[in-house]
């Protein structure tokens, strides 16, 4: 739960080194080309939206950047150092947390167990080291503290099973998990797709809060108003390539859609 220094980017492109930089990513599935040499830069303390039509390669790009898929070629660098992710764990170890579309939560487990799934805390002493006993109490307390810190007030009881929650609450759990452990980058794939208006606003507030704490956020979304609401820069993906990078200040929503569909060039 590290909080980096609070440094907001200026509206012009920052000259600092990108936190996450991808160069020439290629990913094919048989004859289908998912990514055709994509470049991407994510800077400290910004919200970078990734938009694109269906099949433009948004999800594939996210998966390659978070270890869920292995790119055929291309390079990924984290804070200037080249990295290779072969499994989701690899990306997590480097501080990249992802909320996948369709949520990677276990419905039958409770909120606290889900927050700590795959990185459970064990008790101190012999109970933890030899008998591997979990410190359920500490995990619940931490989970509660983390939800409070993020201002998620609708989740009071962290012992409730995920399947008893509404769509927005589940999403909040998934985002909270990413926020709690994503020390370098938080990636959200269509986080508001299944949500109502109020729940969507809560998730967007969470995104802004994360950004304000200095964590760069990558947001994949179909929802243009949402994207223009929170994004500092917008990466437009088209036909497996990066078509353009724009900002909400320099371009309108209509122009963004035009670039996305190929009706206009950047």
């Amino acid at each position, binding site marked *: 739960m590290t909080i980096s220094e609070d440094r907001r980017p200026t509206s012009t492109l920052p000259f600092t080194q990108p936190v996450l930089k991808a160069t020439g990513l290629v990913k094919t599935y048989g004859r289908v080309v998912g990514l055709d040499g994509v470049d991407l830069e994510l800077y400290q303390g910004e919200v970078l939206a990734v938009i694109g039509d269906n099949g433009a390669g948004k999800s594939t790009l996210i998966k390659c950047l978070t270890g*869920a898929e292995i790119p055929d070629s291309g390079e990924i660098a984290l804070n200037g150092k080249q990295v290779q992710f072969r*499994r*989701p*764990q690899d990306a*997590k170890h480097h501080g990249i947390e*992802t909320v*996948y579309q369709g*949520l*990677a*939560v*276990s*419905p*039958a*487990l409770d909120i606290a*167990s889900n927050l700590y*799934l*795959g*990185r*459970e805390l*064990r008790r101190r002493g012999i109970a933890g080291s030899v*008998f*591997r*006993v*979990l410190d*359920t109490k500490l995990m619940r307390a931490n989970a509660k503290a983390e939800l409070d810190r993020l201002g998620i007030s609708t989740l009071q009881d962290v012992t409730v*099973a995920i*399947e*008893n*929650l*509404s769509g927005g609450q589940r999403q909040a759990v998934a985002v909270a998990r990413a926020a709690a452990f994503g020390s370098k980058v938080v990636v959200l794939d269509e986080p508001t797709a299944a949500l*109502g*208006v*109020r*729940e969507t606003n809560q998730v967007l507030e969470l995104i802004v809060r994360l950004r304000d704490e200095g964590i760069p956020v990558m947001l994949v979304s179909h929802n243009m108003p949402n994207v223009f609401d929170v994004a500092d820069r917008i990466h437009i993906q088209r036909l497996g390539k990066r078509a353009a990078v724009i900002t909400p200040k320099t371009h309108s929503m209509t122009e963004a859609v035009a670039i996305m569909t190929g009706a206009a060039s950047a």
Partner: protein
Amino acid sequence: MTTSMLPDQAGAAAKAPGVPVEEEEREGPLRRLQHFLHSHPTTIPAFVLLLGVVFFSLAVGHRFLHPFNLSLIIQQVTIIGILGVAQTIIILTAGIDLSVGAIMVLASMVVAQTASHNHVPAVLSLLLGLLVGLGAGAVNGLLVTRLKLPPFIVTLGTLNIFIALTLLYSNSASVIGQDIPALITATGATFPVFGVGVTYGVVLMLVLYVIMAFVLGRTAWGKHVYAVGDDKEAARLTGISVNRVLVSVYVVAGAILAVGAWIQIGRADAASPNAGADLNLDSITAVVIGGTSLFGGRGTLWGSLLGALIVGVFRNGLALAGLDVLYQTLAVGVLIIVAVSLDQWIRKVRS
């Protein structure tokens, strides 16, 4: 919620979009029951067991509650109870193991034969049996994860393979108790508890239940078993090594089955290559009646012990009542259908 919105409710929702309509207050008693059973899954098997005990106490009278009879039920339940531990952890991962009985018999033949024919020290024979259990479990686990075959098919295949190996290895001959060292048959020895004869095998089974219930509920491995059964892809994306968890589950099940082999030899005072290949279905029955979902991720170990006890009590009670053995089988069949229907209904809980 299938009921349509009331007019005033619909109006309110239209005025304030996104404000959730309070549904909790409108829940009927049936839905509340559904929720309760959802969060307390062992309630039903515990209730059914209690019902069975009360019913047969009244119907059959003192013969059912006689210490000798209770001791008999417990001993009959022991083997299914042990197999139930192995079966439960596998079913929790949304798998199934048809080869549990066959693995146990194979391990028991290896233990008995090495000790009697090859004069291997008893402790070493038991360790060889453990190795056989671990190896057989590893074969199942690796086939499920490496070849990505459904557990049903894998274990259907290994069921036949292990049966054949058992018969080949033993030349289809049993080993009688007096040829087997005392340490190995000691699991069948009894000691009295309040006048009821209890075997060391029963104690061993209970110890296994306590250990595994602890492991499932209080360790990360246990959480991961549930998570893998709940949603495999979600578990993978969370950073759990799904294949490693699956293989370890089958290997642990194999070790438990080896302990089962030790208890089986003591209970039968012999090792027979033909005993128990059909125990796989009985173990699945115990797990299902115990409230564990065949779809994975949901259930408790103690439920399986209750499930095994329920089957034991019903079989025993019906036999004492003088009914034909066919009616026992009929009753078990009805219990399975009822248990799975209840599971389906409980799984529909969504708020």
